[in-house]
């Protein structure tokens, strides 16, 4: 016969585990409205690769030479996307992301599906290379 304390421990562990939320790492997401009609920003190419990570998120590398096309503007800056690499931000879930740039600094990510903005705790300098005058896509 098993001691009662072992059964009690097993029950307690099951109860605790049953209530566990495995998705404990959430990205900070602020609702964001993207506006694309007013003015157009130039596309640009990254001159250097840039490593970046949101709080509670895995690191991502923006690759050297990737071309970023203006999508629109949110309150926090201008939003660009690229077709040259996959960009996602990841905590417990994975979100496709665009970059949000203000004064040549990466200030956060725009999540197009969630229509949300995830800020970086510290803006990151981007090494802007060739600038390509362009239209909204």
């Amino acid at each position, binding site marked *: 016969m098993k001691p009662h304390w072992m059964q009690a421990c097993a029950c307690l562990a099951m109860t605790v*585990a049953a209530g*566990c*939320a*495995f*998705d404990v790492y959430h990205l900070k997401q602020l609702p964001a409205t993207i506006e694309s009609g007013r003015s157009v920003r130039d596309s640009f190419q990254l001159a250097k690769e840039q490593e970046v990570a949101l709080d509670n998120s895995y690191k991502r590398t923006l690759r050297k030479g990737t071309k970023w096309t203006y999508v629109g503007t949110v309150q926090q800056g201008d939003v660009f996307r690229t077709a040259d*690499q*996959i960009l*996602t931000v990841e905590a*417990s*879930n*994975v*979100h*496709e992301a665009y970059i949000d740039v203000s004064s040549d600094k990466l200030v956060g990510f725009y*999540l*197009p*599906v*969630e229509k949300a903005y995830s800020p970086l705790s510290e803006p990151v300098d981007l090494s802007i290379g060739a600038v390509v005058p362009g239209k909204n896509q």
Partner: protein
Amino acid sequence: MNARFCFVVVAAFLLAGCATGPKYGEIAPSFGKLSPDKARIYVYRASALGAAVQPQVKLNGETIGTAVSQGFFYVDRAPGHYEMMTSTEVDRKLSLTLDKGQTRYVRLNISLGFFVGHVYPELVEPDVGQKEIQECSYIGQQK
């Protein structure tokens, strides 16, 4: 003799949850051409790890297939915003966009869980997806 028998039994047990059927290279030519106003998502699970864990794969709430080890399937969808989800003891989600004529690759990975492994979808680069899917078998999509 006994060791060989044990090996066969263990191997059979491990492979029991893996996909069988035509490999990508054998069957892909028979897939219909992507309509210009649609996008295609290939969903595959390259690893044999945790083969017994086979959650359904949902796209915007609709079941589109099953996460079978070393298996793949594809769906064509209109451009737009999508959320792919797998559920084991937790839900794991991937949000992604689709553009006209685009082909995207989603790899189903497995990570440790409390009682069972967690299967989670990850968007991968097309060249990575094209390479890894070659060894996977077509399991068909959920009707």
